[in-house]
């Protein structure tokens, strides 16, 4: 076993080391390639109609992960109605070089062996590596020339922040997989049935939350013998579900993102002095036996055991927390056993609590330098955005497959590039509660996802408890409504750093993250005094945090002008 682990570790180290080496070696051989591909760009199509069809059809290779994709009978990721539609409409044959659910592992090998397809999806750090290795094409001109006005509008809805995360020295090197940043906002989920049982009001302040936590643990509403305050998992700083981001935000601390300090400079939220107060509170609660002493070694599923058993009544987490992991706790044996409800996060003082969100992009589509038709990728993207912005009948195949009927099978995921609107879900938070109250689906508009959600809510109201999770999200006062409320009350604290990752970030973020988690966990578990936080800040700076901050501010100077 040990040997195997060692072997695995070694191979991983080798992959990364080699990917770096081959990447550097590849430089020289790639150079001429890039030069020769430039003229083809210009001599290609005479008119720059961004949607012109290729005749004869061209072939474009990509790579796919198929986890969570369903297919129509007889179709597969290699052969399906969606790929056929691209060929029919754009003259682009999409071919998968490989298909794997262990996408990033396989991609590393492909990159290291200099064997990348024409276009593919990568993470931020992979984008950085590919850019340094000079393996991907500069898509600035392609975007200027071939993006439709609608596409340009789509990418610039947030003022170009997401685009700038893929811009190196003013050159766009990838298409960011746009998404809305609000999805990562935090919510305070509480068991409403417990609140009612104990006659407690809805939480308005952090003091209320602490009071509720105390009452819950003291009174043990479900009579299980031992009740804890918060559902917590080992990834509690920013885990999405059962984390504490919303709690920290209540103290105006924003761990994990960059914020402006009083002097107008960027600082990393993890070392804000406000963190200390929040950690102190957690330590006090831990001392009082209000926090699961095993939280540091549990993942969400494991922690969920306590929730299912009725031993926890408060859980900070994302808007989708009702889907996972709460659904399995709320609905047990065909009955609604626990009534969880989302509330806006609350503040420790008079300033309203802001919820920390990232930029909203976590992956990118890159084009290989060796691609013969780099502009074809832009055309595919144009197509997707056209489908999203206007639901015409001849576009339905892209969303719903060959039957062109919405079967809720999410067949749109077959598309080789998928982008979400930068304000996705905000309209949902406004429209859905209204339509549900008025029982009038015509208020919803044409967005397919919003309509799907309405349908699911109706299923819940008709007695389908499997749809409880959707009800908790979309109902009046549900998490979507709160998402919209945050927006109206300007309570989003968006990451101020939206450049490409700096060298120090790439190098140090992992180590600093480990250090942070270790220290915070020790403080919460009362292994060290809360004053350890000050020492941690110093160490964080010394270990590369200082350098990271310096580079972040250098970048910040360039965008301030």
């Amino acid at each position, binding site marked *: 076993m040990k040997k195997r682990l060692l072997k*695995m570790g070694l*191979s991983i180290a*080798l*992959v990364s080391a*080699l*990917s770096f080496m*081959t990447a550097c070696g590849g430089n020289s051989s790639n150079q001429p390639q890039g030069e020769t591909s430039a003229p083809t760009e210009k001599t290609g199509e005479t008119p720059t109609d961004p949607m012109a069809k290729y005749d004869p059809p061209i072939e474009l290779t990509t790579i796919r992960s*198929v*986890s*969570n994709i369903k297919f129509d009978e007889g179709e597969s990721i*290699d052969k399906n109605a969606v790929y056929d539609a691209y060929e029919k409409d754009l003259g682009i044959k999409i071919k*998968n*070089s*490989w*298909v*794997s*659910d*262990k996408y990033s*592992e*396989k991609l590393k*090998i492909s990159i*290291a*062996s200099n*064997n990348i397809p024409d276009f593919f999806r990568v993470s931020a750090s992979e984008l950085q590596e590919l850019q340094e290795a000079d393996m991907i094409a500069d898509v600035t001109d392609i975007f200027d020339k071939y993006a439709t006005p609608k596409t340009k509008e789509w990418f610039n809805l947030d003022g170009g922040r997401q685009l700038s995360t893929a811009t190196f020295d003013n050159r766009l090197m990838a298409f960011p997989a746009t*998404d809305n940043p609000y*999805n*990562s906002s935090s919510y305070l989920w509480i068991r409403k049935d417990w609140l009612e049982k104990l006659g407690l009001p809805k939480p308005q302040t952090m003091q209320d939350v602490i009071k509720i936590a105390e009452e819950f643990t003291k009174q043990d509403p479900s009579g299980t013998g031992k009740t804890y305050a918060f559902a917590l998992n080992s990834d509690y700083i*920013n*885990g*999405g*579900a059962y984390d504490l981001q919303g709690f920290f935000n209540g103290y105006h601390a924003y761990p994990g993102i960059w914020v402006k300090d009083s002097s107008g400079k960027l600082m990393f939220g993890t070392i804000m002095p406000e963190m200390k107060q929040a950690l102190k509170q957690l330590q006090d609660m831990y001392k009082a036996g209000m926090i699961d002493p095993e939280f540091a070694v549990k*993942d*969400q*599923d*494991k922690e*969920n*055991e306590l929730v*299912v*058993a009725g031993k926890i009544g408060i859980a900070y987490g*994302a808007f*989708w927390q009702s*889907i*996972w*992991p709460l*659904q*399995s*706790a709320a609905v*047990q*044996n065909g009955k609604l056993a626990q009534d969880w409800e989302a509330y806006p996060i609350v503040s420790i003082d008079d300033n309203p609590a802001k919820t920390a969100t990232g930029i909203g992009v*976590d*992956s990118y589509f890159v084009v290989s330098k060796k691609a013969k038709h780099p502009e074809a990728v832009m055309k595919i993207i144009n197509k997707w955005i056209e489908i999203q912005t206007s639901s015409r009948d001849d576009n339905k195949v892209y969303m719903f497959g060959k039957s062109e009927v919405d079967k809720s099978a*999410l067949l749109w995921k077959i598309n080789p590039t998928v982008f*979400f609107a930068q304000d996705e*879900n905000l309209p949902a938070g406004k429209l859905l509660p209204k339509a549900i109250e008025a029982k009038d689906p015509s208020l919803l508009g044409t967005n397919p*996802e919003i309509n*799907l959600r309405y349908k699911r809510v109706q299923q819940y109201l008709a007695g389908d408890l499997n749809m409880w*999770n959707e009800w908790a999200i979309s109902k009046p006062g549900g998490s979507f409504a709160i998402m919209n409320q945050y927006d109206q009350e300007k309570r989003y604290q968006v990451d101020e750093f939206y450049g490409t990752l700096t060298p120090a970030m790439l190098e140090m973020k992992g180590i600093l993250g480990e250090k942070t988690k270790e220290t915070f966990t020790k403080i919460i578990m009362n292994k060290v005094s809360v004053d350890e936080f000050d020492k941690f800040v110093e160490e964080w700076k010394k270990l590369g945090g200082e350098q990271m901050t310096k580079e972040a501010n250098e970048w910040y100077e360039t965008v301030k002008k």
Partner: protein
Amino acid sequence: MVSHASISRKIFVVCNYVFLMALSLLCVLPLVHIFAVSLSSGAAASAGIVKLWPVEFTTAAYQNIFDKPQYFTAFWVSVKRVLLGTGINLLLTITAAYPLSKDSSYFRPRTVYVWIFVITMLFSGGLIPWFMTIKATGLMDSIWALVLPSAVPVFNVILLLNFFRSLPKELEESARIDGAGHFMILWKFYVPLSLPALATITLFSMVGHWNSWFDGLILMNNPDNYPLQTFLQTIVISKDPRFLSAQEAELLLQMSDRTSTAAQIYVAALPILLVYPFLQRFFVKGIVMGSVKE
């Protein structure tokens, strides 16, 4: 053995048995637990109340597996891989070990060859060159990619080589006098006499082939060609909800279904577990024979 054991001996025996029993329980209990989870209801499993006996007994998880055609495709790939791979491994191990077991006086370049073999065991080209070689030979996406790169397990060769050397030389000499050639000697004397050692390396190969998943992942471009363990790897993945769009979250629900995960793990582990008892008797004999020969 003395029949009247001293008190300290008795204490030792008791302690030893307790210790060994605890050790074997440590190995068996996780299996029993997973088996119990696989036969429990989803709610009981996610509440963590299932210990060693199924709670709210149901076979739904197993039915789920039998509904998944991909599972059987992967299972079949694994079976093919084990049969082919073990066969090739055995054949090449035996034919390589035989000449290398000869004395250098008889087979002069023996030491050189042995070193060549051993060097590949100590140093490897690394993952990327390995991958590129296999790609260049056009094996990608075929069953041979899983079988041929590991066709000669050097460790097994050395094991068998040493076993061959421990066989009495006189046997070979007398066979030679009677006119037997190398092939005759190898297949009629060496192989039948080395059954215990062969059983050991057969088991090594089988378990190795059955359990390996990484090469399947790297060398197969189409998930339909995944062997079972690679397929399982992709199912029992750790989730990262941050990369989750709203609609995808629903599918996460199914993924977090522990009972079906447990059932799949169980079905995958079962075949190889069943092989052990059959090879067991060779094992015991092998140990005894080795000790007498010393």
